């Protein structure tokens, strides 16, 4: 420990304080307000020394006040800032308004010919009939159908169908499918139910149904494909799609093709004309810079507890660049509307009550149909999607397995 000698000294004058003197000199000027940081930097002293010296200077007759504001080092300026009104980058909301929105209905899993189908073509009642009347009333020109128009028949449903055989069921479908003025229906075929005839018997059921529809004069029933079909939505309200079977005019053109035209077609495509489906299968999108794809699809596999599980797996299963902008799904007898990975995915519900098959497998049926309104920006994207589901309560509709009939 260092020892210091204590000596008695006379009380002296105030010690010389160089800092205080320097500050006092500054105070001679006009400035009455002094920044602590500024002074400390200028006089090369720590803030506390400046505070003491400033107080001393005031005592010695100086005038002024000391500001404590300290600046933030440049590297830290962006870390925390006092909230202030920020400039917001404007998104042009005109892109959310189109003069020609797409209006369409959506339904699936009608299972006509099943006892559990809720529609009756003879009395023209049921959810489907209601839907078509609604479309007519509200000027909705198109209905999409996600497959399973009829119940088909196989070992386990043979006592639950009203008609046996492909012709009987398809004719019932064509004859009893609702008709509304100005409403066109775009169908795809499922790979189950009506698709059983394809899988089991090798019958192209979609083409068969299309031929029957043409023969029955049902121009409003348009068949797009088996299991899946893409529809291109073009800004301006145009829908582009391929028909599964040529329309009567197209067929006339194909059949009337000259030999040279037929040869040219064969060399281009490797196909002989007229071939069964008659027309090209590839969507020709050339000439359309902005396009959104609506994919009408009949799913597969069982349904999950969570309604959105299968649609999520389907969307996640698409390769990059393969995702549509809208996907309309049939098969699961579910209704839901999800926005998944920038894709609007609708499960279209059903118009068949919960069947014995579903009841045994504890699968609920979401009975009803959708009415959609999609807004497409001029750049093609679907940025606004109205989806109205009209649900039906089907209480008291029970199938009695003993009598194979409907219980009153």
């Amino acid at each position: 420990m260092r020892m210091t000698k204590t000596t008695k000294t006379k009380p002296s004058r105030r010690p010389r304080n160089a800092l205080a003197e320097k500050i006092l000199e500054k105070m001679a000027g006009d400035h009455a307000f002094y920044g602590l940081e500024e002074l400390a930097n200028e006089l090369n002293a720590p803030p506390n020394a400046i505070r003491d010296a400033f107080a001393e200077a005031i005592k010695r007759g100086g005038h002024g006040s000391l500001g404590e504001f300290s600046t933030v080092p440049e590297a830290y300026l962006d870390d925390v800032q006092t909230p202030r009104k920020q400039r917001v980058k404007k998104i042009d909301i005109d892109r959310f308004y189109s003069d020609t929105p797409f209006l369409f209905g959506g339904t699936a899993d009608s299972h006509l010919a099943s006892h559990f189908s809720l529609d009756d073509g003879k009395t023209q009642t049921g959810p489907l009939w209601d839907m078509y009347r609604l479309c007519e009333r509200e000027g909705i020109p198109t209905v999409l159908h996600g497959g399973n128009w009829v119940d088909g028949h196989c070992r386990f449903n043979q006592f639950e169908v009203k008609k046996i055989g492909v012709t009987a069921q398809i004719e019932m479908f064509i004859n009893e499918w609702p008709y509304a003025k100005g409403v066109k229906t775009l169908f795809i075929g499922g790979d189950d139910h009506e698709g059983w005839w394809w899988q089991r018997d090798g019958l192209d059921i979609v083409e068969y149904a299309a031929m029957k529809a043409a023969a029955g004069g049902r121009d409003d029933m348009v068949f797009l494909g088996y299991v899946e079909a893409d529809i291109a939505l073009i800004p301006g309200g145009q829908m582009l799609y391929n028909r599964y079977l040529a329309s009567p005019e197209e067929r006339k053109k194909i059949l009337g093709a000259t030999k040279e035209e037929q040869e040219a077609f064969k060399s281009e495509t490797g196909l002989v004309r007229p071939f069964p489906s008659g027309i090209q299968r590839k969507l020709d999108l050339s000439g359309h810079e902005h396009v959104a794809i609506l994919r009408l699809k009949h799913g597969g596999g069982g349904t999950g507890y969570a309604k959105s599980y299968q649609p999520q797996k389907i969307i996640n299963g698409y390769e990059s660049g393969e995702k549509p902008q809208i996907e309309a799904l049939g098969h699961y007898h579910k209704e839901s509307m999800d926005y998944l990975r920038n894709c609007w995915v609708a499960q279209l519900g059903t118009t068949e009550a919960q069947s014995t098959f579903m009841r045994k497998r504890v699968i609920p049926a979401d009975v009803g149909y959708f009415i959609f309104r999609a807004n497409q920006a001029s750049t093609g994207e679907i940025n606004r999607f109205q989806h109205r589901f009209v649900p039906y309560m089907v209480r008291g509709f029970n199938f009695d397995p003993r009598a194979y009939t409907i219980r009153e």
Partner: protein
Amino acid sequence: MVTAEDSSKEQSTKFSQKIPRKVRKCMDGIVDELTRSKKGKTKFELADDLKVPPQMVDVALNTLRRGGQYLIERVDNSRSGDVLFKLSTHLRPAEEHVFGSEYFSGGVVRFAAISNTRFGNKYHRDDALHAFYDVLGREGINLVLHCGDILEGVITATTRDEVLFPGPEFQTQNLIKNYPKVDGIDTYFITAKDAEGSFTRRPYFLNIGRFIEDSAIEAGRDDLHYLGPHEADTRMSVGGRDVVVRLAHPTIGIPYAASYRPQKMAESIQGGTKPHVMLVGHTGNIETIFVKDIWVAQVGGFIDQTPSMRNAQRGTSVGGYIIELRRPQEFTLPNGTVSYEERFQEDQVAFIPEALAFFNRGFYDEKGKAPYLKGKGKR
């Protein structure tokens, strides 16, 4: 229609604006003292600490309770007979709120539903939120229901690099300065247990919803209204029939299947207490389903995916809903047999949702381009 709750809120706010300076100082002192004391303090202890008469502590405590920003509860010590006051994290549940015809011009019940704005987070989508409100303004919609996560909340280890402003004051000021303000549009919000709800806990003990509303009023904004914490029922008249719209913010893990959580929520509600419509925040999904006779909508959010979300393998969609409610339409056909919603339950309501979705910021930077769309193929 102004409810009793509304008027009491109004009174409390006016009351708080007239607080004398001395009382305000005492209130701040009480909050500071109670923040430091885990067990709580008696009135006399508070008076001694603050060097004020007990009467002043009475006034300050009463003012704090009526203002409702800080959560202070009374704890009776049964052995000593002392009455202690301590800061609490307990929020009283929301009361039902009635929306009258002033919000629904022409009798058309239309409103917007949003969630997860997360003000204070770097990834908040101010551009999309402002565009959404602009659309609402153009559509003449006056009411927005916000399902929670209005602020980012306390910084955590995983969100440290995402949060712009650390405390409730800064985040609230940021919200007030930057939340879209469109003439005629009122926003009613609930608060979450997570995000802004973290300001309810130590060391803040704030009733953050009330704090936001009061701060907004002080700053001259009367369009932000607090409904309550976590869940609030609202009632609106649709075609002469009362319809209950529930705002919910479930703070619970988000499963893979987007619809799983709302399905479980709907199924768990006791019979007879189900709302007609349930708007669900927190999840960041855009979805509507009809389950157990309840229209359930997950109302999206206005925040891009953050690094912490990516780390937790959580996605999010940017957007919100415009919802119209109607009585099921009935009409009789010439043969007198069918109305297209005739099988609909009598007490049900027709639900017409329209979702607006936004892409990432980059999409709107490239003017007139939609590079991800099929048919472009140039990116």
